[in-house]
């Protein structure tokens, strides 16, 4: 148990006061000549049993009463180990606040959200503990902000809900840096989170490093997790997975794919949900019949004025209020599709050999052909073939995809490619005829190897990525491909397709934004039948183009927290990029601090382009990190976990001196009852009057002595 006035515990020896008073009274006796000794002796003999016990009980109760008074004035705190976690006033209290949309979930419609509850409880706990120094690190800025008082947590803008997902490893790293920088004697880290898997990123490589950093700190660091994992089965989340503008005769139609997701794993998907679609001043409502956990209203068509269709626009989809208001709205932006511009980079002709040049040209032509055929005739495609050397000097702002069939980029070209990828561009590397040892983004080419008979891919990722199944659910015919020659890939990456001998055919390299893919073969006939069986290659290239266009179109969708908007918060999180230096103007959505513009849902405009920012898709998944897994993340550290509930009225740490006062009263009442005269007790208990007549031991002894 922890006390706010622990020095008062030094008075605990006063517990012996009743004993001392008793002893003093024993010494202050009077001597009286007495005749009726036989009754005294008899009374003494009777008092050896229950009476002796009663005396001890009275003494014990008096001591308990004194002890309870001392404990009460020492201001004890409930939940002792938690109080101990924050009881050191000299320690720096760092509050890590998960501001992700899932923390906006309330216990009931209109109730207090998890985030509000966490702010209130942490503020009350820190105030009760008398924390002298409180530092807030929120999941948006990930920057320490020292607060004047703990109650400020309830009022600062940096604690308001946001649309961006949290990054717990990043928050903890910031906390470690803060503790290390302050050199305080001890540090207490309070984590307020709903333990969502997408926020905690348990597979992140930073966790072991964080654990090691905290363990090696010279200060004693305690971690306290306030977990608000209470699910909300009735919560629905709405999302627009696609907003496409398509011509319909002389007019245009906006085709929306609207997905409604229920948080509950099971349960009958009954009921109809009215979905309101706002498009400028026009509002329409469509009722969606819920079926299963996720219901998709595919290609919901909304006629668009032809004039408006020439520009871009935005809208909002809403569902009725439920437990979590943060996932009831979704903003979308649409516009005329941009030109599908693709660059095919080939080996420098001066370097390539003659024979190799033919094969490369064959592959290059195939790639250019495939990239130049748009999936819809109304779309425009533009393909350019360039050399690696000339790439550095080319503008890449409107390029969606670069198909790179040359030695990996270096020097200026590598810088241009990196910038291209970081702004959302897509790269597909194909092996050159003469691979070099040069590496890009951790990936390097090895040597060519021929396969006879040709190999067919045995497994590939059909759930996501470039080889994902079609919208109808049919898988791409990846297994029908014949691979005759592959070039080895060195480095870390995620295999998307694997050959029978375990070699990867298609690999995705790690990147913050954009996409970097490495194909182990080329479309040349001597290497594979990618060209002859062109469905797979066409799908791969066109999907890469679609993904790349998302970064260059005049109407884009973005997840909150991405480095699309160069806000202060984004820079603080280290996610700012060259592309994020544009000045975006907030035009729709809840008003938020300008420094956190990209972290709140809404629509932003810049130079005629629209950007709809929404919560990440992972926020709609109610997957929670298991408690045991959380424990393992903090293994070896002083870590306590508290299960809390949204809207919970109780405080985390409470003064419990009232309980001790009640204990004082109870002890004194019991002591008074025990001190009641025996005759009153006899009246209260009629059985005591039925005792048999007592013998007189003194007279008995005298008679025996006389005999």
């Amino acid at each position, binding site marked *: 148990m922890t006390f706010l006035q622990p020095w008062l515990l030094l008075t605990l020896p006063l517990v012996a006061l009743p004993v001392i008073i008793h002893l003093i*009274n024993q010494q202050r006796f009077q001597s009286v*000549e*007495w*005749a009726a*000794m036989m*009754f005294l002796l*008899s009374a003494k003999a009777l*008092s050896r049993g229950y*009476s002796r016990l009663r005396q001890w009980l009275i003494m014990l109760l008096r001591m308990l009463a004194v002890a309870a008074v001392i404990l009460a004035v020492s201001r004890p705190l409930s939940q002792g180990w938690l109080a101990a976690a924050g009881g050191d006033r000299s320690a720096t209290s760092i509050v890590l606040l998960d501001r992700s949309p899932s923390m906006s979930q309330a216990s009931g419609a209109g109730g207090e959200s998890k985030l509000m509850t966490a702010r209130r409880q942490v503020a009350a706990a820190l105030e009760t503990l008398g924390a002298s120094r409180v530092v807030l690190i929120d999941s948006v800025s990930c920057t320490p902000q020292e607060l004047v008082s703990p109650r400020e947590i309830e009022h600062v803008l940096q604690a308001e809900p946001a649309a961006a997902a949290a990054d717990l490893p990043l928050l903890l790293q910031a906390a470690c840096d803060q503790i290390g920088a302050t050199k305080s004697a001890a540090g207490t880290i309070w984590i307020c989170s709903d333990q969502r898997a997408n926020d905690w990123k348990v597979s992140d490589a930073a966790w072991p490093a964080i654990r090691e950093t905290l363990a090696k700190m010279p200060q004693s660091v305690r971690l306290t997790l306030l977990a608000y994992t209470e699910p909300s089965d009735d919560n629905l989340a709405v999302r627009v997975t696609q907003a496409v503008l398509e011509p319909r005769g002389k007019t245009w139609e906006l085709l929306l794919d609207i997905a409604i997701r229920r948080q509950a794993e099971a349960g009958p998907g009954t009921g109809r949900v009215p979905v309101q679609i706002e498009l400028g001043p026009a509002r329409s409502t469509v009722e969606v019949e819920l079926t299963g956990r996720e219901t998709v209203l595919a290609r919901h068509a909304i006629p668009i004025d032809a004039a408006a269709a020439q520009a871009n626009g935005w809208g909002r989809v809403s569902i009725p209020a439920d437990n979590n208001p943060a996932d009831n709205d979704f903003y979308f932006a649409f516009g005329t599709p941009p030109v599908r511009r693709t660059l095919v980079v080939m080996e420098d002709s001066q370097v390539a050999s003659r024979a190799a040049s033919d094969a490369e040209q064959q592959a290059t032509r195939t790639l250019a052909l495939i990239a130049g055929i748009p999936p819809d005739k109304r779309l425009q495609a533009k393909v350019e073939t360039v050399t690696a050397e000339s790439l550095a000097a080319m503008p890449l702002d409107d390029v969606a995809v670069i198909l790179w069939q040359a030695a990996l980029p270096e020097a200026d070209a590598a810088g241009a490619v990196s910038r291209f990828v970081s702004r959302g561009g897509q790269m597909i590397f194909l092996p050159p005829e003469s691979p070099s040892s040069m590496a890009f983004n951790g990936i390097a080419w090895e040597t060519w190897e021929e396969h006879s008979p040709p190999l067919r891919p045995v497994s590939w990722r059909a759930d996501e990525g470039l080889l994902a199944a079609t919208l109808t659910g049919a898988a791409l015919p990846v297994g029908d491909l014949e691979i005759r020659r592959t070039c080895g890939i060195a480095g870390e990456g995620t295999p998307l397709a694997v050959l029978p001998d375990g070699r990867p055919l298609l690999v995705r390299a790690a990147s913050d934004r954009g996409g970097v893919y490495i194909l182990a073969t080329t479309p040349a006939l001597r290497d594979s039948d990618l060209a002859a069986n062109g469905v797979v290659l066409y799908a791969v290239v066109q999907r890469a183009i679609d993904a790349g266009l998302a970064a260059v179109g005049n109407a884009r969708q973005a997840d909150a927290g991405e480095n699309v908007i160069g806000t202060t918060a984004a820079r603080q999180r280290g996610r700012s990029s060259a592309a994020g230096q544009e000045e975006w103007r907030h035009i729709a959505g809840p008003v938020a601090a300008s420094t956190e513009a990209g972290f709140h849902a809404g629509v932003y405009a810049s130079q005629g382009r629209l950007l709809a920012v929404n919560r990440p898709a992972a926020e709609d998944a109610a997957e929670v990190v298991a408690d045991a897994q959380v424990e393992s993340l903090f293994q070896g550290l002083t870590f306590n976990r508290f299960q809390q509930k949204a809207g919970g009225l109780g405080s985390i740490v409470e003064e419990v001196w009232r309980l001790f006062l009640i204990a004082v009263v109870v002890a004194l009442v019991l002591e008074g009852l025990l001190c009641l005269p025996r005759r009153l007790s006899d009246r209260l208990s009629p059985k005591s009057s039925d005792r048999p007549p007592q013998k007189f031991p003194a007279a008995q002894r005298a008679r025996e002595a006389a005999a």
Partner: protein
Amino acid sequence: MPGQFTDRPNRTFLDSGVLSRLSAVPLLSRRPMIGGVSGRHVSPHRGSSVEFAEYRKYVPGDDLRRLDWRVYGRTDRHYVKEYEADTNLRCCLVVDSSGSMGYGSTGITRMEYARRLAGTLGFLACRQGDAVGISCVADAIVRHLPPRRNPAHLRLVLDALEQAKPEGASRLPQVLHELAETIRQRALIVIVSDLFMDPEELASCFGHLRFRRHDVAVFHLLDPQELAFDFRRPTRFLDMEGGSPLFADPLDIADRYQQSLDTYLASLKQIVLEQGIDYHRTLLDEDYEKVLARFLVSRASGKGRR
């Protein structure tokens, strides 16, 4: 008593006013007494008092003066007319002089109170012509004077009372057994004591006295403090009869003390009822004149019981 004790006029335990007022009520025996001379008490034998008892057939040898000639004239049969015999009694005063008799919280000790009771009774008995004796008992018979009708003997009795000092342990039951065997004639045994002893032993000695056809009267002297036991502070109780001292917190043992005392008094009450003892519980703060008046009146109303 100025006339009788001219050389020792200061009997502090005797009050002439009390004596004169109580003289109006005779001290009577509740049971027939066998005395040597005529007196005021009922005798088991027929005698020459004025109170008719019964007719009895004449048998040779009877005194012809007792023959009722009127009955003979009516019935032609000889009947002897008999009358109740009034005799004197022997009053044995048994005064407990053990150490516990020295206790008194009301300004008067139990011993002093006993002196007043026993002295007054002795005087009243002597005055109506009864024999008076005294036994002062502690751990043994300290002083014993057999009953005598001589007024000079009363002086010795009063001297014995005056000289009695409360000391030593009490062996009243053993002494009463001894007296029961010693006093051969029927007598009025007046016991003045605190009776702080086992009720079973008292029952035994009372039974012995009653078996000897003695009329037993008991003055049970109790101090109000002994009944209330209202001490507040821890106290070291010194046994007035020489026993080991006892240290106790009165608040702790008051309830048990009361329980023990109540049990004792209830037992004693049961014993005196069973044995037909004339029992008087007397508190030391009571006026002894009232106590004695109650005692005398109750006995006068019970006259003639055999």
